[in-house]
């Protein structure tokens, strides 16, 4: 299909594309890729297409999915948060230390877990907006600081034995659906609405699109950034909570390199690395593409080394298709 055709008489594909982008803020290509992968895996492995396996995929995607939501917000504002994985590890350890070492009740421990992440994010945001240090440097520093702190608090060991009510968050089920999956989907839906339909979301995207224009338009860019990094840290804390309660312990090494996986999911889902565009539903599809790919390859007994290659390939391909289409559009 040439761009001129597209202008003169839009085909069904481009009409659908336009609708999907306007109404749900997602790219249709990524849904096609996801369905294509599901079809392929179903044909290749007899174990793939079952409710329990789909639950596996969603459960495996829940932690990384929550981190990817954080990555989408920060990236689409033109920022970067490299400390996501470390902050997730730190939060889980802080929560376990509160619950096990200090014997705090579950609500306090839960708030401490998410709060530790939000606090780390607040520190990031503060140094970035008030200290004028680039986000790359600040969050790279936090990557080391948070990981080190997690190891110090836990003395390098997993802190085992969370209280029963806390375990419900990671191991409980509601209507047969694992709790982490429910929490992940609810958070994703809320955050999708925030980014796509609220003023907060529009400000986020416009800062990422053109910071100076946003400032001229009267947006308090510095304060908005501060809240974005705090939100990002808080979501990393939530991811830490989900993982710690799943394995009944705070693991100081949890989440190593997850920041990169989260950014990958966001970009496969259509987020612009340099800001101005992003959608949570798109990111969820990106995360699911990776989840389905990994799950399917595991069922087919493909070594994990090839899985990393496959995901790297999908990432580059996704951005290639995106760039190709943008070039076609600007040619007109």
């Amino acid at each position: 299909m040439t761009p001129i055709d597209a202008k003169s008489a839009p085909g069904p594909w481009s009409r659908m594309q336009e609708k999907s982008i306007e109404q749900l803020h997602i790219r249709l290509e990524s849904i096609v890729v996801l369905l294509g992968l599901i079809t392929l895996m179903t044909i290749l492995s007899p174990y793939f297409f079952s409710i329990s396996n789909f639950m596996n995929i969603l459960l495996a995607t829940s932690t990384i999915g929550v981190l990817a939501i954080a990555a989408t917000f920060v990236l689409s504002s033109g920022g970067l948060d490299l400390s996501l994985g470390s902050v997730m590890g730190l939060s889980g350890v802080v929560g376990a230390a509160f619950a096990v070492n200090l014997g705090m009740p579950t609500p306090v421990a839960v708030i401490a877990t998410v709060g530790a992440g939000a606090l780390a994010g607040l520190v990031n945001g503060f140094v970035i907006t008030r200290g004028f240090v680039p986000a790359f440097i600040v969050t790279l520093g936090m990557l080391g600081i948070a990981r080190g702190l997690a190891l110090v608090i836990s003395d390098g060991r997993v802190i085992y034995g969370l209280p029963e009510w806390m375990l419900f968050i990671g191991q409980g089920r509601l209507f047969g659906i694992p709790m982490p999956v429910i929490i992940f989907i609810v958070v994703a839906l809320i955050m999708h609405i925030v980014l796509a339909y609220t003023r907060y979301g529009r400000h986020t995207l416009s800062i990422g699109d053109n910071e100076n224009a946003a400032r001229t338009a009267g947006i308090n860019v510095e304060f908005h950034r501060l809240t974005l990094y705090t939100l990002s840290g808080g979501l990393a804390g939530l991811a830490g909570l989900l993982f710690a309660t799943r394995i009944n312990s705070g693991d100081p090494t949890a989440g190593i390199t997850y920041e990169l996986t989260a950014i990958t999911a966001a970009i496969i889902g259509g987020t612009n690395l340099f800001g101005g565009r992003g959608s949570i539903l798109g990111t969820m599809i990106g995360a699911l593409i990776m989840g389905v790919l990994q799950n399917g390859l595991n069922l087919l007994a493909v070594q994990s080394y090839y899985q990393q290659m496959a995901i790297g390939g999908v990432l580059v391909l996704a951005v290639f298709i995106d760039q190709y289409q943008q070039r076609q559009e600007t040619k007109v």
Partner: protein
Amino acid sequence: MSKTLKYSTAGLATMAAVAMSVPAHAEEYAILMKTLANPFWGAMGKGVEEGARNAGVEYYLQAVESDQAAESQLNVCNTMLERKPVAMITAAINSTNLLPCLKKAQSQGIKVVDLDGNLDPDILAAEKIDITFSIGSDNVKAGAQGAEYMVSQLGADAQGAVLVIEGLSGNITGQKRANGFAEALKELAPGLEIVASLPGDWDRGKAANITNDILTRNPDLKGIFAANDGMALGAVESVFAAGKGDDVIIIGVDGNSDAVKSIKSGRLTASVAQLPYLVGKQALENVKMAVAGNDVEKQVIVPTLVLTQDVMEAGTEPMLEFVK
């Protein structure tokens, strides 16, 4: 582009068709390792494959990208259960990361095996997980064997300073080895005094620095015990650089290929070799017995072997074939 849509609808139809016809499958053993990139786990993986071939069983082996990918290993574990194996043989990254998966396996009647003793019996009891058996080396004994060999070289009435280089602070394996060494040394040769016991964090460079520092303080150092071979090899460099290569006995643990080379060339004195290949092989054979309904030992200890230049040159030790 609209063809893509047609193809995917066609695909969805096939998907539904395939889903209805899941074929029956032969008995399969699922094996979940850490990462095969580490020679220790690589050797264990080879032993598992050999054991499966000998036992004539089908196996399905997966590993993760690094030995810190705890959640990734849990996800792979859950996925592996979809293939409904008869046994789930795991080398867990830490004592808790696989707990939900092992619980699920147990509830589905799948036998759970702990490869290399990574699971903690107390935690398993608290989680009500009843594993079929645990197999691995005894790390306390490995440390004690190091002490025995050191005393056999220096004599029971020897006097002097000894350095212990521990593993990563807080790591249970390193602690067991260092404690095993210290206790056996106190008993066998009370005259040998441990002047320092410091964490080398499994790091060759760090161990070399520690050795340098202690040699400055105790120039008459008699022996060094390091909780793994990498650190022992770091100590070797410092000792030889200080010109004391002939005066200090250096012992590591693992028996990895670098250590074997160093022992052969007369630099590292000895290494208490673990036999990961044998652990893997024996694990598979025991699982087969358990699946057939026979009783198996709950705690299988695979022996460790003190590797020295003499042992390797003689070549008569039957377990040498398992040093990979």
